[in-house]
């Protein structure tokens, strides 16, 4: 079994325990933050193990790459602390289990991964994806298991990720364009954190889009609309990809609105909060999030993650916003129909 590359000393000598100091769900001063993270590190009980909402934020806040989020998940599991209800935890484990139902297209060296989200297959069509759409992959055998971190089931992650990578290997793919932000994050953050080798080059779909849009530049009709971006939790694991949103929006003539909850201060869509904490916190977070989008002057709320989109769409519509996936926005800019599968 793979183990987490975590250096106790790095935490012990941390000058600013931002992992907890910046946490959006726990309020503590520097001293307490240090104390609590050290309890976690040393395997003691800590309020962190009970209060963490699994937003992935600490993984981004930690400037020293010491993987506080994965550590918290590990320690929770060691102590048998459930984040969500046991039946919900198991429901996720069961529904994402490999049952031999995956589908693959005509696989070439470069493949298009749709994770276990059939809607992504709809999004990954059209001119933007015409080169790689036939080489699609969708199904549990190729799904990033990062979702199980929300349920403190790192054992599932460690068990399944190598198998997922083996499955990719068997297809002889050299490059994989990940339509799910979390897949890319899993391959480039979780895998190295556990010393798991990724046998192909993962490509974030936004990198791919950017390149494609440059090729199709002459066909882009600037959309001239204002949009607020909903950053998903997985994007916290790959902060180096955050800039792509602005670059894509600029290219298609979308004004990306400044808002309070952006970048490091992004808010969770609420689906996992609802599962872990109940409706009070969820309602509060979702309200702040949507109100903030609306107050930014945006016409569209732009999503990166299909789950965020499903969770927030209805609320966004009620606030007068038009929810749309980033890929669909790009399709609009080149005069194509939207994928339209995500509701």
């Amino acid at each position, binding site marked *: 079994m793979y183990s987490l590359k975590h250096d106790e000393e790095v935490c012990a000598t941390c000058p600013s325990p931002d992992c907890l100091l910046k946490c959006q769900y726990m309020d503590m001063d520097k001293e307490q933050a240090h104390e609590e993270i050290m309890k976690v590190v040393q395997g003691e009980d800590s309020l962190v193990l009970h209060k963490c909402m699994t937003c992935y934020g600490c993984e981004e806040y930690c400037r020293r790459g010491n993987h506080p989020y994965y550590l918290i998940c590990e320690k929770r599991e060691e102590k048998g602390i*459930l984040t*969500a*209800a*046991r*039946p*919900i935890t*198991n*429901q996720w484990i*069961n*529904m994402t*289990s490999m*049952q031999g139902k995956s589908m693959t297209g005509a696989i070439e060296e470069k493949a298009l991964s749709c994770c276990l989200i059939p809607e992504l297959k709809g999004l990954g069509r059209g001119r933007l994806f015409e080169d790689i759409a036939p080489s699609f992959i969708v199904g549990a055998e190729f799904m990033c298991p990062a979702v199980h971190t929300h349920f403190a089931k790192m054992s599932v992650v460690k068990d399944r990720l190598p198998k997922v990578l083996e499955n990719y290997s068997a297809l002889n793919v050299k490059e994989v364009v990940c339509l799910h932000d979390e897949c890319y994050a899993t391959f480039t953050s979780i895998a190295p954190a556990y010393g798991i080798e990724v046998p192909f080059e993962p490509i974030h779909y936004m990198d791919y889009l950017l390149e494609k849009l440059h090729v199709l530049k002459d066909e882009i009709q600037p959309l001239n609309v204002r949009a607020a971006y909903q950053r998903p939790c997985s994007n916290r694991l790959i902060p180096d990809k955050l800039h792509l949103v602005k670059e894509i929006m600029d290219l298609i003539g979308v004004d990306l609105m400044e808002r309070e909850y952006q970048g490091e201060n992004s808010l969770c869509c609420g*689906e996992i909060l*609802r*599962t872990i904490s*109940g*409706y009070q916190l969820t309602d509060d977070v979702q309200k702040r999030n949507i109100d903030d989008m609306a107050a930014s002057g945006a016409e569209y709320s732009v999503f990166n993650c299909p789950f965020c989109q*499903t*969770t927030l769409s209805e609320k966004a519509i*009620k606030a007068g916003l038009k929810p749309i996936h980033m890929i669909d926005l790009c399709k609009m800019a080149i005069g194509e129909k939207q994928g339209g599968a995500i*509701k």
Partner: protein
Amino acid sequence: MSDILNSLVQIVGEKGVSNHPEEIWFYSRDPGTLEPHEPDFVVAPRRVDEVRDIVKFAYEKSIPLVPMGNGMALTGLVRPLKGGIVMDMKRMNKILEVNERGRYVVLEGGVSQGQLKAYLEDNYPHLRHSIPDAPPGTTIAANVALHGQGRLTQQYGFNSDMVTGLEVVLPTGEVCKVGSCSIGPYWFSKGPSLPDISGLFLGWLGATGVFTKVGLRLFPRKSLRDVEVFVTDRADLVEDIIYRLTHTEMIEDLTIWFQPKPMIFKDNYHINVYFTGDTEEEIEFKRKMIWDSLKVHMDSKDGGFMGVGAMKATFLEEPQRSIAAFADVPKGGGFEYSGPISPIEHFAKYTAKVYELAAKYNLLFAGTARVISGGHAMMYGISFAFNRADKEMMNNVKEALEEANEFTLEHGSIPWKPTVSEQQMTMNMMDPNTLKIMKMIKKNLDPKGIMNPGNWEVS
């Protein structure tokens, strides 16, 4: 035989009668597992006078007569066990009156659930009826005749409790009105404050008369409807979960279901909590009350509300098409279930039995339950899917259901829409004086024993 045919043709016309082998074959069976019994004739009347004349004729000639709606009970209730005439009521499908302020409808005995739903949506968008999840062709009259349930059963009881009046053609041919409609033009009460004689007909599975008209309560249709799904892996907690949820008095419908496939549903019990509102505020308030009611189980991590996502549309559909789709799980066009009306406290016990039977007979199962009347009882459905082309599997389903029925009866449950053998088992356990009353009723109403013979037949 041709005399009978001619007489029936005289009553309903040539098109309305058949003794062709095709109709004889078809009307001898239902989609369940029970063996067929052939009728001699099938008739399809259009009017009350035709029903009356058919019944009078059958009575005079002592010909068994089985009234039939859509024939979807799955327990063989419209198989003519002693031959005779099957009377398909579906051509009597007029909706006669809606009293909007009094919130009731009067309709003919062949009106289907789907038809009434569409009619109300078109003409009375603020009213609805308690639609079951059976296919839309099932008739209102047959549903109340067998104490069916529907979307509003949690709130208002069995669909038969919602009857506000009946017009029944008695086995001797008289047309009899039951309730307020027997003394005037209004159909608001099936009994009170008169002696309630609707019990002579409701639940008798057509063995005491043919329903030609039914008055039925309608209920407010709120503009918004939503569902939350609570999940637990502990069958023993379901009883408490139901108790807490029904305490809120805010729930439209409460159904519990479990099934082994697909994997997302494995090992868990799903409690669908339906609620309605006229405003977002009302809906959100109810949602919070529902969540709060189960806090203790969420805190213990024994249960939680799952994300419903794309499944919501399926859950909110009326009727829920996916119920019929269960028949296709073994790619074979069939399922049958036993649905005892049971004390809620038996949920865990019955559930263990479902797993035991599924393993013993190697069957695909789905367990369901619907809470009745705010938590006084539940319909506990034990469903097994089968492949109609696989005789052994069908036989296994039959045997498993017989075992299930025996088990639930032993635990004090009442079989719902019971097969003839379940009726016999039930009557064997019944208080002798109760049985005596049933016998008196049947004997007096149907002296020649022509109506759906074999059903509720006290020996």
